[in-house]
């Protein structure tokens, strides 16, 4: 049984048909790398999985929670699906520790002490235990992104969505974030990543999904696909990146 099951998913932005029938099954523990040109629908697809984008037709199921085109309680779903963003999106008025604690306290209703202990252990996991009391603007981009990862992990999600999480970072900060993600993958976290880090996708990904004009154009084992793209579009895309 797939942890995430996406069937016949369609979405329009006005007259623009951005998702044109997506079918995708993701097993527990898999690392999925979503790649494609901008405008291919990869970020939109990612954002439908936790309800940040609605869709017009089809279905998404995450660990037994169904999302339907209209009217779903998204909170139950979002308890199971964490997300990390390109722009980090830390809450600027809260310290790193408070950022991690906020949702565990008010959503998961943990007590202050338990939430604090959990926040500390999550910051330790991303190598920032000493930054508990630092405000976001006192942290580098890479550190902010690692706090954002700790914040998402504290909710103990079943799946983590990563939306171009290294694209806003200076080149020398990319690796510290990818190292954290690599550890998560090794621990068996299910990850769905929109990424431009092709080497990372190749090394850590279990499955590569190439989006083209709103469809999954090609997917499969990353090593194989990179070495041997089956379609001229993927070949062209790989060529344009390298």
């Amino acid at each position, binding site marked *: 049984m797939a942890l995430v099951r996406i069937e016949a998913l369609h979405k329009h932005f006005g007259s623009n048909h951005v998702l044109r029938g997506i079918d995708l099954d993701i097993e527990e523990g898999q690392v999925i790398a979503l790649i494609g040109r901008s405008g291919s629908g990869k970020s939109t697809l990612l954002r439908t999985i936790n*309800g*940040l984008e609605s869709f017009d037709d089809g279905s998404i199921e995450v660990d037994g929670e169904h999302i339907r085109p209209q009217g779903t309680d998204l*909170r139950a779903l979002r308890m199971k699906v*964490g*997300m990390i963003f390109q722009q980090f999106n*830390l*809450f600027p*008025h809260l310290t790193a520790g408070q950022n991690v604690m906020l949702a565990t306290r*008010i959503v998961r209703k943990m007590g202050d002490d338990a939430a604090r202990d959990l926040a500390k252990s999550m910051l330790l996991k991303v190598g920032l235990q000493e930054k508990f009391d630092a405000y976001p603007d006192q942290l580098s981009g890479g550190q902010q992104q690692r706090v954002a990862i700790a914040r998402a992990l504290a*909710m103990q999600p079943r799946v983590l969505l990563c939306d171009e999480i290294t694209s806003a970072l200076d080149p020398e900060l990319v690796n510290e974030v990818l190292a954290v993600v690599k550890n998560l993958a090794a621990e068996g976290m299910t990850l769905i990543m929109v990424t431009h880090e092709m080497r990372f996708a190749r090394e850590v990904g279990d499955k590569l999904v190439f989006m083209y004009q709103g469809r999954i154009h090609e997917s499969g084992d990353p090593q194989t696909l990179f070495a041997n793209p089956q379609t001229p579009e993927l070949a062209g895309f790989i060529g344009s990146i390298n």
Partner: protein
Amino acid sequence: MAYAFDFSAVLEYREALLAGTGRTLMLTGIGAVAGLVLGTAGAVSRAWRLAPFDRIFAVYVELIRNTPFLVQLFFIFFGLPSLGVQMDEWQAAILAVVINLGAYSTEIIRAGIEATPRGQIEAAQSLAMTRRQIFFHVVLPPALAKVWPAICSQVVIVMLGTSVCSQIAAEELTFAANFIQSRNFRAFETYFVVTAMYFLLAVGVRQVLALTGQRLLGRRSK
């Protein structure tokens, strides 16, 4: 013949001046707290288009911002009794101040709320927070911090504006001044002292508000 200044003629009435100062501060304090609560409610209604409140607040804001405070006060104190709504002068003064500050702060706080980056709200949604939790924990604190200097100015403007409450016989600082100069006929000295007192009050209130902002909203609200 040169005018002989006599400030002792004012100081004789220091108790009246202090009592008036206290009431001016009371009016400002209650007005500020309740007005900012009202303004926050108005701001979120408008920024997040919470029907029907967004429309109601839009009309209310326009109505208050385009009419004089004195007329608003007279309307409440002299006008409303015709509809059977009786108030004493303090109730009317407090209500007028709250309504007035509520309208201006609706627009100020709305600017702060609308400046919230979309990504912050999405991050909060992704953490399964409810709309209410997102508003109070994620949106409101940075929004207030951003516009706090404007809020401080508006509260000081309102405090100075409370002087017109003397016109419905609310015995605040300006009422005390009018009373004193009608007794001692020392208009220059009296209004000189009261002008200085308002000036010091304004500076003091601004300081207190700035410190309050730093305590409640953190380092950003300077």
